[in-house]
């Protein structure tokens, strides 16, 4: 867990998530905006979300079961078409939730 929950690896959480998305999806960081639709706009596939979760897990130093992403999306975006509903901001919210779930650093 980072000492300052708003920072991940010394970067602001949103910046970190944007950079990770750009790296995983092989797109320019400038192409990743808060409203970018990861599937519809950036071409993300299921394995890419697994990669994102692994990298968030590593950066936060916490264990994140892959099912937690599915549960989060089901709760956060009920009955939505996930092709268009999952955005950069969705991933940021997921990371924020994981930080909260992990609790304060020991």
């Amino acid at each position, binding site marked *: 867990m980072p000492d300052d929950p708003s920072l991940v690896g010394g970067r602001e959480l949103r910046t970190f998530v944007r950079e990770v998305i750009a790296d995983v999806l092989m797109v320019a960081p400038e192409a990743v905006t808060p409203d970018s639709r990861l599937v519809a706009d950036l071409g993300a*596939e*299921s394995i890419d979300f697994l990669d994102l979760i692994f990298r968030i897990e590593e950066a936060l130093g916490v264990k994140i079961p892959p099912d937690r992403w599915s549960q989060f999306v089901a709760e956060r975006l009920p009955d939505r078409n996930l092709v268009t509903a999952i955005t950069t901001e969705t991933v940021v919210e997921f990371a924020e939730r994981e930080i909260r779930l992990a609790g304060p650093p020991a």
Partner: protein
Amino acid sequence: LVPIVALLAASPALAQNGLETFLGVLGGATVGDMSGGGISTDSRWGGTAGLFVGLRTNWYAVGSIEVSWIQKGGERTRLDYIEVPVLAGATIPAMTGSLRFRGYVGIAPAFKIGCRSDTVLLDCDDVKNTEWSLPLGFMVLTRLGRGQFIGLDLRYSLGLSDVFENAELGNRSLQFRGLIGMPLGRS
């Protein structure tokens, strides 16, 4: 068969969005021989090229079907087949760039389309029309952007049936292939 079915069982979370499908082309080189009954021929090199379609059914699992021309045989016997491997595998991210690793296994019927034998011991008239093999392979993949991907594939194919009507010889080959693919959509 049971692990393959289990591996390809659709995840409800993904089924909600539709299964991801993809298609592509592949090609490369093969080196193989014929072996059985305590003997084996010297190896020979050949080529392979084809098409594939596939789908992702859950986080890791990928199923695919190929239709490829492939050269097998050994030493002075060249066998040309149209092979139709049905494969199931798992993909994991390498956590660097968009690199992915995939291992897979399957079953591959192959249908003879040509034969040339420069040895009197093996007669093309005796070659069976159908051959079965067990492919095992490993791929390294990376994306090009918006779902397109390229990769390298190393496959070992073990013959499960005899090549000839009158000789206990099966094909076995190593295949070195490059591939390029793109998303087909969601079913």
